[in-house]
């Protein structure tokens, strides 16, 4: 999946003054960070701004990155914080953007799109601490250990939050999940 050693080499080159070494890191992480931001905030324009801001902040803080840790955990953490800051500033109950991209469903049919929209709507109704575990688990494909690193919480807490998040999501989806 992600070559951590390669990431560290690129980070070191950036810190040594090679600005262009940051470009492959941007290419590598923009998709996952944008997907995470989109699922967290529910609006493509806001997700774009958050992703850009997170990547630029990461560049500015590269000298503080500890190469003993994984770069993706570090940069996800920055992006998660950007999302949380954004959500704390946003008015509660702001409606979801109806044009939210549904992603690449293998079926690509109307039913899949309806399902995706239903999940997006249910997701944005979840409290933030539950939403982030669902996003990291299902859209970032992170393991419990990786989620624990990114969220700075014990694995046990990750599991219990995901447990509650699934229950809440199923409850929000209601009629669909009974199908």
């Amino acid at each position, binding site marked *: 999946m992600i070559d951590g050693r390669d990431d560290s080499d690129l980070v070191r080159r950036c810190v040594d*003054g090679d*600005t262009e070494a*940051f*470009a492959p890191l*941007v*290419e590598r992480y*923009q*998709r*996952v960070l*944008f*997907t995470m931001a*989109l*699922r967290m905030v529910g609006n*493509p324009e806001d*997700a*774009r701004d958050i*992703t*850009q801001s997170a*990547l*630029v902040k990461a*560049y*500015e803080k590269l000298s503080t990155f500890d190469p003993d840790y994984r770069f993706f955990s570090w940069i996800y953490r920055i992006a998660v914080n950007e999302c949380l800051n954004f959500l704390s500033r946003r008015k509660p109950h702001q409606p979801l953007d109806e044009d939210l*991209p*549904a*992603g*690449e*469903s*293998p*079926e690509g049919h109307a039913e*899949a799109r309806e*399902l*995706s929209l239903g*999940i997006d709507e249910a997701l944005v109704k979840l409290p933030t601490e539950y939403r982030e575990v*669902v996003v990291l688990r*299902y*859209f970032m494909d992170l393991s*419990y250990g990786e989620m624990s690193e990114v969220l700075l919480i014990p694995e046990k807490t990750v*599991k219990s939050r*995901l*447990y509650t998040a*699934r*229950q809440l*999501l*199923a409850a929000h*989806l209601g009629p669909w*999940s*009974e*199908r």
Partner: protein
Amino acid sequence: MSGFGPEELLQRELDGENTGEESAALQSRLASDPGLRESYERLRRLHLALGRIGPADPPPGLAADVMHAVRSRAARAGGARGWLDLLRAPFVSRPAFGYALTLAAGILVGAVFVGFVAPPGLLSRRDGPAAGTILPSERLAEPKPLDRQDLAAEGIRGEVVTNRADGRVVAEIRLESEGPLDVRLGFDAGTLSLLGFERGRLAPGEVRLAPGEVRIEGAGTGRYVVVLGVLGPSALRLRLSLEGNGVRVEKTLEAGTGS
């Protein structure tokens, strides 16, 4: 069997964490408990549906915009880092020379201290400490603005000033406004490049940066500073427009010439 309760076994089954024995125990419970089976089916459908939603494509131009911002920051930081590198270089390449240099600098600083600050008796000088300035007087003068224009209109007060500093064009906008303003500072992207944007801590507005334009939506009372790098040798002008409070103000600002 393990110490997990049925609900936790369901979750572990979804995540593939159950041992063979635990899975078998769960299947046995599901067969005899319709309520638990229904709960499992509901969570399994959700789990599969979540897994089917793929990643979203990032908008076109996102990576380019990030790198544009990163290069601007690197360019701004370049000057400061250059001095640091200059100071650090002797210690990295030739440590003995570096320490000798530090000693010489220390002696020089000590001499300046004794000569200018120490009491007269310390040096047995009768003519007292020296007075005056080390820098030539013109170095202490404020940089002369290239252009300064008033931004007064209905419900708006302020001014915009353009300066040159270290070969860069700096446009400083100070505003007082009764309502939100749409502020646009336009420039020729062929001769000027955006290096940075700053604003006062309380200055409101959403900033949109694009090649050839800085736009502040919802600007208001506060200070906004745009720093531009000079790319080519030609006369440089900036276009400033303010719109809001039912009025529109447009200004063309002189920013010198490229070197």
